[in-house]
């Protein structure tokens, strides 16, 4: 039986020194010299470790140790030595912790969240042979922000640590502490420290999660949605500029796209004339962020591209990687300039102040004061009908353009359903979103593979001009062939997938939720 350590808080009127005195009366222990350690907690920007039930701490007992803790049990799950500050999962030496991190983080980088300066004083409870049978650690903890000056004291803690093979003594000691009215801490030290710096774990997520009022006027709801998207967009700016990982830019672009979709799809709630400059502004943001994102995608795919080639020519692809990295560097520098430009800043600033201003009544916004729920039903069912009609019209010989258009409509429909999901019963709304996602994945693959194959050819041309070896171009040629082959498969799968999406039971589910056809 593996026992976990228990973290206690002291009762009113008892401090660590007082506790030590009481313990000395009825226990035989020796004291280690107090030591002060600095621990830094890490997570991705979007708290993936936390969401997976963990806490990741660097320097728990030893300075170079990275440990995954179970945040509910407060226990160490797995530790690994690291020689540099944690970053990407790929850079952590192979081992069980690296495996776990790779699965949880994917492409996200680890960022320091908060530091804890811990002064530990360990009492070792001894048996008649002077053998340690239980460890009691008296902890004084302080937190400091990673950036900025926030810092402060945390409540003292007493940690009871079991030793394997000495379970009986551990239980006895636990009773002793309970009798002294120590109570097990409900929050981990990390949570305490986050409270200290005013952060809430999970406070950022790229997922849409609005709580909407079904009776609120539609224009107010639209603003609420758009402000949420703007917050997401802005939260990702500094990470995008620093290129901490590729997901910042991705989330920034998704927020941009969703904003544009909201502008056009939550129809008739604002005066189109007032909206026009913002539509253009966000269109511009979408455009200037595109190239870097494309290159990010190729870089993310690169390991798969390489692995998909026959072993003997895998190395031939390396110049393509160098090419991507160089171009990415350029594109990123260009992107930073754009983000720092007055136009970028002014666009967001003007948008926020427009969203926060009191709505100006306008005859050109017929839906402004309609109830949110009503407008949501109407817009979703209308778009759904269009998707159905256009999707069913696609046969094996329909031109690619038709599928690309359908993809755009499906995306709009998906965004609408996600914006408004809180208005519908929770388990029921998940089904159509999931069903639509299957279609979107297929259409996305169909289009992306085509674009990728085309880009790869363009890259090849450029590389040729830059003097790349013929072997690289041949390897890329094989890759293009593979991509196009997969694209054909995606195309072939579409009709059947769409038949599934448009079957009677799915249609009924849509009707039941959103009314209409």
């Amino acid at each position, binding site marked *: 039986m593996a026992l976990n350590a228990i973290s206690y808080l002291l009762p009113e009127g008892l401090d660590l020194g007082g506790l030590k005195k009481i313990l000395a009366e009825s226990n035989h222990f020796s004291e280690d010299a107090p030591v002060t350690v600095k621990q830094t907690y890490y997570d991705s920007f979007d708290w993936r470790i936390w969401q997976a039930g963990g806490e990741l701490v660097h320097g728990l*007992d*030893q300075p170079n*140790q990275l440990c995954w803790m179970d945040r509910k049990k407060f226990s160490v799950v797995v*530790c690994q*030595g690291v020689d540099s500050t944690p970053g990407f999962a790929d850079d952590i030496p192979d081992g069980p912790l690296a495996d776990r991190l790779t699965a949880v983080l994917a492409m996200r980088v680890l960022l320091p969240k908060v530091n804890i300066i811990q002064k530990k004083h360990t009492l*070792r409870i001894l048996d008649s*042979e*002077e*053998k*340690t049978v239980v460890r009691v650690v008296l902890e004084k903890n302080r937190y400091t922000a990673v950036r900025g000056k926030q810092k402060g004291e945390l409540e003292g803690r007493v940690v009871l640590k079991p*030793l*394997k*093979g*000495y379970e009986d003594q551990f239980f006895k000691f636990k009773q002793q502490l309970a009798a002294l009215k120590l109570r097990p801490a409900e929050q981990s030290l990390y949570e305490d420290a986050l409270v200290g710096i005013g952060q809430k774990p999970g406070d950022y997520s790229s997922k849409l999660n609005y709580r909407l009022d079904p009776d609120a006027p539609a224009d107010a709801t639209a603003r609420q949605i758009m402000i949420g998207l703007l917050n997401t967009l802005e939260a990702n700016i500094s990470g995008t500029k620093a290129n901490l990982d590729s997901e910042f830019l991705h989330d920034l672009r998704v927020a941009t796209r969703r904003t544009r979709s909201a502008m056009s799809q939550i129809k008739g709630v604002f005066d189109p004339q007032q909206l026009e400059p913002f539509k253009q502004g966000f269109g511009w943001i979408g455009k200037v962020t595109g190239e870097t994102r494309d290159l990010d995608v190729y870089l993310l795919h690169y390991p798969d591209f390489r692995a998909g080639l026959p072993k003997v020519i895998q190395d031939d692809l390396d110049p393509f990687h160098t090419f991507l990295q160089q171009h990415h560097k350029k594109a990123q520098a260009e992107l930073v300039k754009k983000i720092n430009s007055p136009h970028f800043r002014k666009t967001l600033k003007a948008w926020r102040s427009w969203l926060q201003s009191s709505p100006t009544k306008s005859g050109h916004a017929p839906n402004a004061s309609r109830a949110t729920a009503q407008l949501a039903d109407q817009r979703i069912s209308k778009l759904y009908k269009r998707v159905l009609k256009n999707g069913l019209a696609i046969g094996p010989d329909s031109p690619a353009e038709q599928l690309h258009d359908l993809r755009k409509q499906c995306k709009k429909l998906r965004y609408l359903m996600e914006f408004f999901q809180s208005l519908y019963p929770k388990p029921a709304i998940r089904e159509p979103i999931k069903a639509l996602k299957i279609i979107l994945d297929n259409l996305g693959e169909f289009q992306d593979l085509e674009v990728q194959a085309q880009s790869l050819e363009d890259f090849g041309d450029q590389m040729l001009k830059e003097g790349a070896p013929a072997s690289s171009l041949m390897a890329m040629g094989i890759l293009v062939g593979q991509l196009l082959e997969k694209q054909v498969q995606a195309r072939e799968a579409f009709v059947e997938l769409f038949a599934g999406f448009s079957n009677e039971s799915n249609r009924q589910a849509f009707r039941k939720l959103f009314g209409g056809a």
Partner: protein
Amino acid sequence: MHIIGVYNIKGGVGKTATAVNLAYLAARQGYRTLIWDLDPQAAATFYFRIQPKVKGSKNKLIAGKVDLDKVVKATDFENLDMLPADFSYRNMDLRLEVAKKPTKQLLSLLRPLSHSYDYVFLDCPPSISLVSENIFRAAEGLLLPMIPTTLSLRTYKQLLDFLEGHRITGLEIMPFFSMVDRRKRMHLDVMESLQASSGELLKAQIPYASDVEKMGIHRMPVEAFAPRSFAASAYQALWMDVQERLR
């Protein structure tokens, strides 16, 4: 999991001192380490202040009958656990004889622990027996402390013959000099003759040092009570050599 046996047919050559100190150093490096005291004399167990008794071990230390994990005890040191000695080991040879694969019992016993530990040190009793053969077959490396005397050379050759005779291959033999007294002519002579002839010999040597004897008073590894001593740095050098060899 790396299994390292510390062995010599001869008694009193520094086997236990080696196992205890190296296991401590491995654990301090962050490796999850287990030391198994296979000697009924229980010297290693004594050094860690643990009571030499394995719960419910009467007649049962045969693979499949006992879960080693249940008898493991934490030492006072982070990452370092111990399988304490048991007086019933006295009869271990007899029990191994009746087991199904008598020479592979130790390995099967250790197998379930392979995900829990990075290093396992086996502190072996002197003599050649079925227990020793089990150790040779379980271990990846065999550390052989030798006092530099002509007699030790002979026992070393004996061991090599035994291994060859029993077709035990793939075991990394790591002899090294232990309890070296540089004031003794014979020590110097023997070391010189072996250094020239044996490529397997580890470079590090453990000197004859009173700090090693004091382990019995402090009841802990040298490094833990005399980290700056000559003996402590000798064990560090030895541990580096071993890691190098097993890489």
